[in-house]
């Protein structure tokens, strides 16, 4: 068990800098997810923590030890790779026991440890099979087992679920969460899938172009995104962003986007009349049907349904408000709306986020 700290960590490949001085403090026992689009440097950060990639600048600490020049094998970290990286010529038993063998443990000790972990992961019947004789999900469990037998200080996961089908991914996600609850080992998990990030993380780190955009709990990054990028990246469907202007009408603070005028119940204290803003509204902050009854009167309006996608549990609707503002709404599946219909809708304006159109940063 250990906390991990990154101080001004930089990574350059030749003359190209891909990670620009990242500061990050990962607490002991924490499940931290690094998420971002491909090429954002998240795997590079993970590989630098593992020691597989030399650090071009800054410092990495595992526990209280600076590990910049410590070789991977001496960092006591375990990693699960995207393609599992199981040794194809070894049986599951040997794959799982390999690290213990390398550290000079006795054969009995290795066997006991492997059996114990295989029991937890229900790999008992497969111990004498080779990786090629296992399904994707089983291989994934072996890769996890291989990491678990060592009792490492830190677990590193590099997109471990991206090779699995959707159903298996959901199942493995739960298993990962359970594993973390049982072992309480500091875990750093890299993914490009924001659902994985939201469901697994204690805290999420959103990376873009080698820079941290925001660090926070799943709810924080969802409800209070630090900038437009985070707002659009986290959440599916992504947040609606409208161009608008801040106005004070009859002493009431509001934002106008074309003909639409939305009240601003909180935040944006620094804004003055006429300041341009970007208005962020989560699709699930748009309500329809009986859900709008609980909302204040001035938060309601009417909109025309353009497209509706029915997904069962909920539906995605494209709605045009005041004839010009297109908004994507996520409403309950029971709500039936047909294209062309004009329906009453309500907004949870207390969840609205305003952004500076210049810097794209959130205005608090």
């Amino acid at each position, binding site marked *: 068990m250990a906390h991990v700290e990154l101080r001004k960590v930089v990574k350059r490949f030749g003359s190209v800098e891909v990670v620009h001085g990242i500061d990050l403090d990962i607490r002991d026992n924490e499940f931290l997810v690094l998420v971002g689009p491909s090429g954002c440097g998240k795997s590079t950060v993970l*590989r630098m923590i*593992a*020691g*597989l990639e030399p650090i071009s600048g800054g410092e990495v600490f595992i526990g209280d030890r600076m590990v910049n020049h410590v*070789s*991977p*094998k001496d960092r006591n*970290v*375990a*990693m699960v*790779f*995207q*393609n599992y*990286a*199981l*040794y*194809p*010529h*070894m049986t599951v038993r040997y794959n799982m026991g*390999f*690290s213990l*063998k*390398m*550290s000079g443990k006795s054969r009995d000790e290795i066997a006991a440890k492997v059996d114990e972990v295989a029991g937890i992961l229900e790999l008992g019947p497969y111990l004498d099979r080779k990786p090629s004789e296992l399904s994707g999900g089983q291989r994934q469990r072996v890769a996890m087992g*291989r990491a678990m037998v*060592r009792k490492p200080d830190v677990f590193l996961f590099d997109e471990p679920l991206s090779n699995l089908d959707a159903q298996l991914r959901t199942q493995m996600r739960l298993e990962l969460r359970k594993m973390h609850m049982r072992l309480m080992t500091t875990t750093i998990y890299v993914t490009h899938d924001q659902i994985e990030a939201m469901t697994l993380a204690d805290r999420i780190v959103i990376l873009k172009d080698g820079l941290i955009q925001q660090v926070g709990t799943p709810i924080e990054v969802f409800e209070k995104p630090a900038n437009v990028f985070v707002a659009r990246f986290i959440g599916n469907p992504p947040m609606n962003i409208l161009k608008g202007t801040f106005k004070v009408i009859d002493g009431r603070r509001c934002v106008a986007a074309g003909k639409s005028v939305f009240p601003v119940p909180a935040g944006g204290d620094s804004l003055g009349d006429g300041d341009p803003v970007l208005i962020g509204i989560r699709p699930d902050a748009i309500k329809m049907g009986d859900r709008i009854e609980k909302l204040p009167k001035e938060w309601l309006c009417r909109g025309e349904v353009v497209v509706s996608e029915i997904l069962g549990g909920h539906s995605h609707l494209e709605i045009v408000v005041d004839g010009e503002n297109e908004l994507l709404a996520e409403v309950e599946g029971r709500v039936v709306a047909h294209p062309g219909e004009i329906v009453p809708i309500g907004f949870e304006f207390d969840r609205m986020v305003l952004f500076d159109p210049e810097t794209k940063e959130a205005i608090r």
Partner: protein
Amino acid sequence: MREASRDRAKAFLTLLPSIILVAVFVYGFIGNTIWTSMTDWGGSGALATEPVKNFIGLDNYVDLFTGFLGGGFRQDLVNAVYYSIMLLAGAVGLGMFIAILLDRKPKGEDVLRTIFLYPMSLSFIVSGTIWRWLLAPQGGVNVLPAYAGFKPLDFAWLSSTGAILEFNWQNLFQVLLYAAAFVMIMVGLWGVRRDPRRAVLRWIGPGAAAGLLVWLFGDLLPQALFMEETHGFNLATLGIIMATIWQYSGYTMALYLAGFNGISQDLRDAAMLDGASEAGYYRHVAIPMLKPITISAVIILSHISLKMFDLIFAMTGPDNAQTGHPALTMYLTTFRANDFARGAAIAIVLFMIAALFIVPYLVSQYRQRRRG
């Protein structure tokens, strides 16, 4: 259904010419050689338009292995065995070693790779001539120490008459049984960590028992020859072995290097994180993964060593008894001595030895494919 059978007929017709050619020119001629080896075709009338060929059964073979005049062939056979073992160990070991060095991507790796692979492109006659110069008694390798201020060597690389590891051909059966016991014990020791029970019961136990029995009762075994005749590892073949290793380690290097490059970086990373050192990675992960390459290299090299001809011809000439080789003797017996039947018998012996290597390999491949 009819379409399928027509397809099959087409496929068969397409293959037919090559089937016929292979049947005649490969298997037909092997059969013909076997037949020839069981005749007495040779001697003064061998080149007559209608030579006399009488069927004499296995007499030629019996004579090769137990005859008074077969001593030369027997030494050649022993040479071939030592030559094969040393070439395999040397070329596979050295090739693997160079591949590991180059796999770590040193500066100028591509240039070095070409340099190491280059000897492969030379013909054996050329490399034989080069090495003949290098191993000349008063030049090349022998004078190297003189440059460092030491006494030059005086070893006769290609004409030494010394021999080590000698045994009496009379005790051939004992020697073979000892060798078998040794191999069994080694196989057992190799697998003892994986499955100790099986290793002991199946390999080490029987191997040790066989060795003990031969040691106690070996004298009861029939003697392979009526007189004493010692054969061993002729030191004069060292030079030839060195030259062949020089020529072929680049080839095995290329095989292994291609294999190493094919191993995903993730596996290497995983091994590093699992606590394996560089050496540990190669020992436990990379080299075991390349077992198919090792097997191919062993098969190919054992072939080459069995039919080696031109390199020996170029280095020591055809008539040097110390460095004789069955393939060379086969040629001399057949085309210089015109003893066609005896030459054919030598050819078949070589053929059988080659089969010893290849048939188990083919069987295992076939089984694997059926399982897969």
